[in-house]
């Protein structure tokens, strides 16, 4: 990931309508943000559309970035995640109202659920909290990964994993609780 300090500087210049800085910010971050959108939407055209909208939003809202919102990358990832999630759900409503078997979440093949979990595991290793998060069951971790990386809601996860809704809500809640306590135990500041 690009250095936080240089991204903060680029964002500050973008807030002053510096187009050269904006292109620099795009070159430094677009591949990462594209992967975020692709993971949620799993369609290159739609992910591209969301990426463009996100950078338009970043250009307009750069002055609203403040360090308390996290690193510039966290701030930008959330713009992309929000727009991707909105599009995913808007499309699902649209498809559901026009076809009988509309729920796109059901199109997720069981094997593709493996990828979010691998990404979760690798990220936890990098964050040095893999051991601490290892106390979660594999289902709890899988539920957390599907929600974060795929933008799935509890009912999607319950359908995919063939589990009761209440159980899935418990898995996600437990995953988040554990993430919080693992980060606190690891002494990650500001968290």
């Amino acid at each position, binding site marked *: *990931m690009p250095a936080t*300090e240089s991204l903060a*500087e680029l964002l*500050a*210049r973008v807030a*002053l*309508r*510096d*187009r*050269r800085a904006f*292109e620099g910010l*795009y070159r430094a971050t*677009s*591949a*990462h943000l*594209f*992967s*975020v959108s*692709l993971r949620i939407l799993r369609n290159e055209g739609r*992910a*591209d559309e969301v*990426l*463009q909208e996100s*950078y*338009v*939003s970043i250009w*307009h*809202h750069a*002055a*609203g970035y403040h360090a*308390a*919102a*996290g690193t510039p990358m*966290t701030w930008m*990832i*959330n713009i992309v*995640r*929000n*727009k991707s999630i909105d599009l995913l*759900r808007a499309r699902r409503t649209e498809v559901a109202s026009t076809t009988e078997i509309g729920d796109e979440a059901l199109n997720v093949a069981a094997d593709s659920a493996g990828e979010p979990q691998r*990404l979760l595991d*690798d*990220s936890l*290793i*990098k*964050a040095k*909290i893999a051991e601490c998060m290892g106390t979660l069951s594999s289902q709890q971790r899988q539920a*957390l990964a599907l*929600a*974060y990386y795929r*933008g*799935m*809601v*509890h009912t999607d996860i319950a359908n995919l994993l063939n589990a009761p809704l209440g159980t899935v809500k418990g898995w*996600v809640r437990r995953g*988040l609780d554990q*993430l*919080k306590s693992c980060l606190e135990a690891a002494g*990650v500041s500001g*968290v």
Partner: protein
Amino acid sequence: MNYLLPVRLDRLAREYALGTLAGPARRRFERVVRSSPAASMAVDVWRQRLSVLDLAAAPVQPPESTWHGIERRLFSGPNQSASTATPIGGALQALRGLFSGRGLAGALVGALLCAVLLRTQPDLIGMEPRFDALPASYVGVLLDPVGKAALVASSRRQGRQLTVKLLQPLNVPAGHVAQMWALPKDGAAPFPVGVIPAQGTSRLALPDTSEKLFFNVSRLAVSFEKAPSNAGDAPAGAYALIGNCVKVW
């Protein structure tokens, strides 16, 4: 429902940040986040926690057409490369586009539509509408001796505070303070604005509104002084940072 009860707020904030809060509940909570600093902060904390899950994500290069699409949307001309653009050039280009015949008609219709929509559906524009337009402000970027942007200073036109954000820590010599100066464009003597910290963001109280205080000031600078300067003092040495300021109104 009181969204701001701590336990409820934390539950909503984490579900919102994760993405599992859906449908009308998601929209309602977005409105709460926009109006409540406590809710906004609770979401930020969860986003930062969840951001560790992005550490291992492998980047995927988008097609080059994506960048051209963004340029087209923002600057209405895919052939203008950013290498020749300046911030002011970009703004002029945007204004020219706005006031061309079709652009003007489109902008008027768009503005009316936006006004109506925003009155009825404030969440339609996605996020943080309060930041959509820069309020009338006084803004400066100060560079270090090698030309690197080191400090952003900003103040509202009628504000009596100057927000100073260091983009890189300032190496203040022991026994000295970092003193900010305002440099009038008519060549009159610089006057002291206040002492700034070596890093982070701070707010300097101004004796008057920035409109009155900085009306004739085209540059800001920082020097290292042995003590905070008073009105009538002059900088003791060379400027450690200096840069241009603009009035955005």
